[in-house]
């Protein structure tokens, strides 16, 4: 993903739902835009603001955070923590001069390969329009 002419999207996927959803998309041979790289965590609630800002700092154009549907979290309520955190992050991003649309939160279950495909394609299309980050994010 070195080339700066193509979109760079990092997808943080939880082990139980979204990572399995990404696998399901592949298993069903659903074709997707390829400009994303998946990082697996056990739960979406592991993904903190620092990690997302770090990704922007290292050149990501957009970040997808995907977890289990509300009520389905393998760890009781981790996805609600993620939801609150992403809302907070979006307001923070504007003040850093980063478009909040560059971060997207989605609930994708293990059997929603179709939804994974749709989300990825839509998101990469939007990110392509936004292009690379306009200003450098300096780490605090």
């Amino acid at each position: 993903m070195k080339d700066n002419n193509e979109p760079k999207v990092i997808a943080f996927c939880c082990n139980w739902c979204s990572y399995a959803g990404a696998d399901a998309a592949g298993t069903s041979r659903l074709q997707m835009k390829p400009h994303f790289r998946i990082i697996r965590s056990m739960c979406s609630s592991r993904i903190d603001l620092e990690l997302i800002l770090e990704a922007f700092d290292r050149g990501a154009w957009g970040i997808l955070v995907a977890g289990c549907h509300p009520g389905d979290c393998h760890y009781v309520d981790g996805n609600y923590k993620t939801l609150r955190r992403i809302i907070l992050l979006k307001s923070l991003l504007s003040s850093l001069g980063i478009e909040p649309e560059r971060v997207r939160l989605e609930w994708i279950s293990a059997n929603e390969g179709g939804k994974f495909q749709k989300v990825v394609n839509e998101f990469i299309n939007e990110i392509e329009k936004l292009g690379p980050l306009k200003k450098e994010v300096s780490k605090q």
Partner: protein
Amino acid sequence: MKIGVYVCHCGGNISEVVDIKRVMKFAEQQGDVVLVKEHAHMCSDVARKMLVDDIKEHNLDKVVIAACSPQFHGRTFMGTVEKAGLSPYVMEMANIREQCSWPHYYEPEYATKKAKDIVRMAIAKARLDEPLEKKTSPIGKRVLVIGAGIAGIQAALDLGDAGFKVYLVEKEPSIGGKMVKLSRTFPTEDCAACILSPKMADVPANPNIELLTNTEIESISGFLGNYDVVAVKKPRYVDTSKCTACDKCAEVCPVVVPNEHDEGLSSRKAIYLPNPIAVPHSYVLDDKTCLGLFPLACSKCYDVCDPGAINYDQKPERLNFTVDTIIVATGYEIFDPRKKKVYEFARSKNIITALDLERLISLEAEGTSLRPIGKRIAFIQCVGSRDELVGNEYCSRICCMYATKLSQLLKRADPKRDVYVFYIDLRAYGKGFEEYYKRAQRTGVKFIRGRVAELHEDKRTNKVTLKVEDTLTRDIIESEFDLVVLSVGLRPSPGTLKIADTLRLIKSPGGWLQEAHPKFRPVDTLADGVFICGCAQGPKDIPDTVAQASAAAARAIRLMNKGEFEVDPITAFVDEELCSGCGICAGVCPYDAITIELKQGKRVSRVNEVVCQGCGACVAACPSGAQQQRWFMTPQLHAMLSAALGEEVS
């Protein structure tokens, strides 16, 4: 550090899209990589043997397998590297099949480039992997079974017979659950009480089962191998060891109230035997309706009790005990038809529920008929099931067959009866069900496809008129019946909903308890050591309930029998130097695995690694970076980010 990288062709699944040679060449250029190999099928025995030999021969200390998803073969390769003497947690999989060759099938050039990135990410993570070891924790042989319907009874008996100590807790004064109320069972038409009562009698006879009736769970805390249970035994006011069930007390009791066992169709006294086959076979005093308790004013029962079994001074008793595993068998309740406008007259004289009819038929068989049942009888199916308007989308699974059974019992008692069953779909899915349904048709029961739209009871004659469209012939039927029976569906019982909160179990749509995996872990829950069976998990008939109960017992035995269980080491831990003891981590932990302790005058967080399930929420919440999760360390995630975004990492 020596890393070995293996690139799998997956018999063409990967190699037809991704250029394996270029990926291998790329891997060779990565730091610390000393060996790169390819194989047509990495998961095959021969390839795994090669992997074991390579690890030993080349002294590899990390392994990257570029192949399928870790969810597909992760366990396979973890086992293989373990065989070679390495920790299973120094193996990383680069998912270049599900997440590369398959979804980017028509872009082989990009797919190859992406495969390289994915391999580089796996190498970056492997580089920082620590050789974690699986830990074990001791476990005893004590089980709590909640609910003593047929599910709880079966699970308790299986466990007791296998030599495990069982606490069987039932909130009602007798065990037996809903099955005690049934007339006969489909499709074999066994008498329900006759097949259930020997099983009920086996419970107090089993030396390993401690039966706690009239008892409710107050709280449960702890974790697998160490669940602390607090239960409250409500006063029964009758000593079960002295009561001979002679009925003298009930004869003199002046209080008459509706009898729950007969769905309120008959009456009982304030002191009563819960049902004819009750276990324990002892009377119980209903303190909400007894005249004499507060203050003691009546005492008629006390005066006639020869064995002196009655004790008005009993108080609620708090019980504390510790168990290793828990089986939830809290069952269902029937849908209240009055919740739906069409059935607003339900429970009027001639519009009754199927459970009411079960009782009427049972009582008639016992020779105490409460009322004539009539000549023209209609069953309405799917009352409260498959009905989004009442919020129940699910099929209750048993109503088609119990209506068929009741129709047969009605026909047998009086072959001249006209019996109609109005259904949406007739579901005869089980063993012997279709044959039973066909037999019912041959006896003259009329099965008509159509959802009943209107229902009116004539206030003068008490006959019920029913309006329905036969959706097979398109005829509108308007007909008068002596009795309309609502085939009510099932709902999770209040006890099921309460225990879900107590044990933090996940509920599926409809409120039923959610199994850990619908196919492969059907009686497990995501709470370690907690199992579910019977209708608490979802509507089902008696054979399925019994099968599930035995399955839950077997799964519990599987955990306890070894005397110790494995703990996944990918838990959180604390860097006490960095920790400020703020306690934010403890607040976000869904399992109460984190406590704040005083250590040499400093407040620090402590993770109970047996309880921790490894979600990492505390790591994300920690403001000082003191909290970390093994195998998902922050530096590892950062290294993967760098690798993904094309920065060189050494």
